[in-house]
């Protein structure tokens, strides 16, 4: 029949509208069923598979619940217990990185001997392809994928070259983003630590039993952080991130310029040597 296609098409559209409004009419629309309410009209939404009608996520007020494995760009983990970088500058992340966007400078002690700590750590975000190989292959759980996607900037250079300060986050932040994986890793880590301790103990027992016993006591009860402490840490991290955004650019630019100059000098040196 002439025009039947048109009517059918309109029918589908009307069905979608109707479903959406029926959903809206409920006390708790199914699109908000599993969502987390943050107050002030802001929500984190998880769309369920059986939700009918159209769903529009009103970003920025409403957000999609990002799955744990969501990956955007990498971040470096700061171990708040030991108060140090987990990174040991082993360079595996830089080696597996497909577009080779990670640059690491290994630190050295006063005598010039290399130590297991990065002096500088850069990731070029304008090259990073979010593949998460760095996080997968890091043997020290020191580099992980961040969920933060709100990274748009007005200026590309140097704002999109992240340095160590910009990449570092406390381990609690990581535990919030990746709870399941964090738990698994911690279990393995504790097992390994205990294993190491046990070995050390046995070794030490032969020499000094007393000392070893004291150490074992210490490791038995690990202090647990209260939620307040975690909240405080998070706030500190957020504040630090904000502060960095506001005034870090100039200093960083200068630093990068300095590096550039140094690289040029090195190159010149090398050329001269070659000649």
């Amino acid at each position, binding site marked *: 029949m002439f025009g039947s296609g048109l009517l059918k098409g309109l029918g589908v559209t009307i069905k979608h509208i109707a479903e959406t409004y029926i959903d809206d009419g409920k006390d708790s629309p199914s699109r908000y069923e599993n969502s987390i309410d943050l107050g002030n009209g802001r929500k984190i939404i998880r769309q369920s598979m059986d939700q009918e009608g159209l769903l529009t996520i009103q970003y920025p007020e409403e957000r999609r619940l990002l799955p744990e494995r969501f990956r955007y760009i990498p971040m470096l983990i700061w171990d708040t217990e030991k108060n140090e970088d987990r990174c040991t500058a082993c360079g595996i992340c830089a080696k597996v990185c497909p577009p080779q966007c990670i640059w690491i400078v290994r630190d050295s002690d006063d005598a010039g001997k290399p130590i297991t700590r990065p002096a500088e750590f850069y990731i070029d975000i*304008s090259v990073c392809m979010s593949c998460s190989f760095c996080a997968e292959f890091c043997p020290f759980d020191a580099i992980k994928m961040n969920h933060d*996607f709100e990274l748009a900037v007005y200026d590309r250079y140097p704002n999109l070259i992240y340095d160590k300060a910009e990449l570092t986050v406390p381990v609690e932040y990581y535990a919030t983003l990746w709870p399941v994986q964090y738990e698994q890793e911690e279990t393995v880590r504790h097992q390994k630590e205990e294993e190491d301790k046990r070995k050390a103990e046995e070794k030490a027992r032969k020499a000094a039993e007393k000392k070893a016993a004291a150490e074992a006591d210490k490791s038995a009860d690990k202090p647990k952080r209260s939620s307040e402490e975690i909240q405080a840490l*998070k706030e500190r991290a957020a504040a630090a991130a904000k502060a960095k955004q506001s005034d870090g650019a100039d200093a960083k630019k200068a630093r990068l310029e300095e590096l550039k100059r140094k690289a040029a000098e090195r190159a010149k040196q090398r050329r001269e040597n070659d000649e």
Partner: protein
Amino acid sequence: MTTTPEGGFQALKEEQIQQYLHDSIVVPEELQANVLVTTVDKIYNWSRKASMWPLLFGLACCAIEMIATASARFDLARFGMEVMRPSPRQSDLMFVSGTVTKKMVPAIVRIYNQMAEPRYVVSMGACATGGGPFKEGYTVVSGIDKYIPVDIYVPGCPPTPEALIYGLMKVHEKVERQSIQQVPWYRKERSEFVPIPVLGPDIFDPRQVQLIREHTLGEGAAQAATDDGGGITLKPNLLTAEQKQQLREIKARYMAAKQPA
């Protein structure tokens, strides 16, 4: 099912989005005497930012996420952007969504030149921003900002629709900061025309002809300028005399065919 704990990570971002929740414009103190202009600015910028029409123009992977952003779930129409115009003459905003190759750059620059002021350019994704994972490639341009001015860079590979919308809100922020007194497009001078890059043996920008000449014709041209002697060896593989002759014949045939009978 694993979930991010309540509030969690998103709570960290609370402060950053605060400014979008209360849609108020604070009049700076030094401008408060200038009430008329600020009011006009406010209306002018509000109407501009609320009806920005993007160019229907996709390059690569990011274009797929751009389509997803425009579709029902993320809905660009909430920002007055539902009308994607295929013609650059009718659009205010260009998403450079994907890898920019040397072969494509002349077209992009031409499209940019055809857009009427005020125009904004969003460099979407790692590739358009800096070449991305393909940066080292021989036909990839390391960032569209080498050729046309860019207003906002949205990193990510590809940026999720939310990340793109965040970038668009930053464009809105930029629009809001502009004042009708200072914007360049009401001045007498014509808006800047970006010279169109040319595909030679490799792409070159007409603005850099002198610089290139210095290096290709000047001393030490053979070991063409790498900062650290990265080992670039140039092997020109230009047309042979025979090929040139062939092309001349083709051209002659072509010209003959074009002649009116």
